[in-house]
């Protein structure tokens, strides 16, 4: 399954990157959102997959009786999900405002600030 998910991650990355390389700024944000999913999955998968058992301690017990999924990558992913939400939301609105200011969504027309 790790192999399968690794491939899924690769494809997600490829799709996200491809979208980000489009000239339409609208696609840029979508690509960014895809990359976010991909990165979260990387942490999740690289941290080690365990089917089933969530990292919960049964009531009254001190520790889970069986092997549970590694909670740390989960916490990291949770943080990353939320951060990526904030950042994508901001970027989305930034794209909208840029589109309004420039009057075009072709990113190739937004080169004035570079050289």
């Amino acid at each position, binding site marked *: 399954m790790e192999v399968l998910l690794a491939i899924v991650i690769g494809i997600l990355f490829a799709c996200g990157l491809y979208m*980000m390389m489009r000239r339409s*700024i609208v696609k*840029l944000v979508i690509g*960014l959102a895809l*990359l*976010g999913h*991909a*990165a*979260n999955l*990387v*942490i*999740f*998968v*690289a*941290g*080690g997959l365990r089917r089933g058992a969530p990292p919960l301690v049964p009531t009254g017990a001190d520790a889970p009786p069986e092997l549970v999924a590694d909670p*740390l*990558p989960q916490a*990291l992913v949770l*943080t*990353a999900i939320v*951060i990526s939400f*904030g*950042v994508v939301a*901001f*970027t989305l609105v*930034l*794209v909208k*405002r*840029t589109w309004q*200011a*420039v009057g075009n969504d072709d*990113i190739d027309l*937004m080169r*004035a*600030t*570079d*050289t």
Partner: protein
Amino acid sequence: MSSLALILPLLIPLATAGVGILAWRSRRLQRAIGLIGSVVLVIASVWLFVLVREEGIQSLQIANWQAPFGITLVGDLLSVALVLATAVMGVCVIVYSFGSVDRARESFFYYPLMHVLLMGINGAFLTGDLFNLYVWFEVMLISSFVLLALGGERAQLEGALKYVTLNLASSVIFLTGIGVVYGVAGTLNFADLALKLSAFEEQGIVTTLSMILFITFGVKAAIFPLFFWLPASYHTPPAAVSAIFAGMLTKVGVYALIRVFTLIFNQDISYTHTLILVVAGFTMVTGVLGAAAQHEFRRILSFHIISQIGYMIMGLGLMVSGNPAAVRLAIAGAFFYIIHNIVAKSNLFLISGVANKLRGSYELSRLGGLYASNPALSLLFLISAFALAGVPPLSGFFGKLMLVRAGLEAEAYVIVAVALGVGLLTLFSMTKIWAEAFWKPAPDESDDESAGESPGKAAVRQPGMALMMAPIIFLAVLAVALGVFFEPVYNFSIDMADQILDPRAYIEAVLPPEYIEQVRGGVK
């Protein structure tokens, strides 16, 4: 008490930002809160600095969960010095903003955002945990995104779009790297990583991991060929924002590179640090050439940021030398260069803002006559510009000298030649600004010599000009003082280098001895 000293650089800006948001209705209140917060931050940073200087590396286990399980804040000489620098820059920029930032921006959370930025920077300097570093990077990034776009001018938005995209791409790489590092090492704590990865037999894997972090920190530090976001955006926001970005943001990337490539990835130095050295060379050259092609005040300065990052990275790369004295000097030089660059580069951006306020443009072709009309400003520019170009006896010279001497002792002649050549081109760019913005008569000025005096002088009395000039004077004095009182700074840099180059002290300050024993015994 150290627990308080280490957390305050995070809590003060956070509390300031929080209260500042609540006070959004009153601009005056926001200003007061912003200023008080930044001054208190300086006091706290000085306290932390003195504490670490006197008692060695300090660590704080957040929520009392012992490293490597909880998050640890670590203050060593490198990080507390940078925290102090951040705090000082914070006050400078906030005071400058009083005189230069418009009302609309002020009432849209300008000061709270600035404090969040400071908090992110401090967090990045102080944390001892890889994922926590990511979080602080994001705090820093998001607040810089907003500060960059705040105001919504077209150029700002275009610049911000590139800044945001490329930085987010690097964040994604960072996140991936964290996932992989955790998957391989099972830990995120710097000290624990250092302990476990250095003992790991398959160093090729460790080197591969290091490359992911090299790229991601490289983007933040704006090294070759990952710097594009910087020149595309840094010249677009208000000068105060440019100044704090220029002074601090890339330095965080450099700091992170120094941290991980001295503490954690110090085994395969001949590969990693040679790479760093090569990249340093290209960074210097491409940056300075980029500047040579520009004709706008802040664009020139922006490209020079890149070029100067090359110097700092060069110091790190010189670790490849087997000569301990050279390595020590190189790391110390890199550190000194960082400090110097924070002062000089930020100040130049602040000065560009004054020039813009006086003449209404950042374009060199539309500037001019400042030498005749504003001798004080001209002097301050000269000090900062020559400091940046490494002219003695100003701060930049000593940074350059340390690096050159270290490079020559390390027999890394090519990089030294590049560094010296780039120094000349830096001088070239600085004199370009000088000749165009200061010496050259203003484009609208008549040929009558005395006529050049009036417009600028009137502008000097503009409201807020004193608030803008105060930090500029302070920083220029600092640029001089760093050179004139070089000895204590140099000694500090050397102590810092010694500390950085001996990871054991760091590890022992963070992890309990029995844990270190256990890991040393346990890893294959």
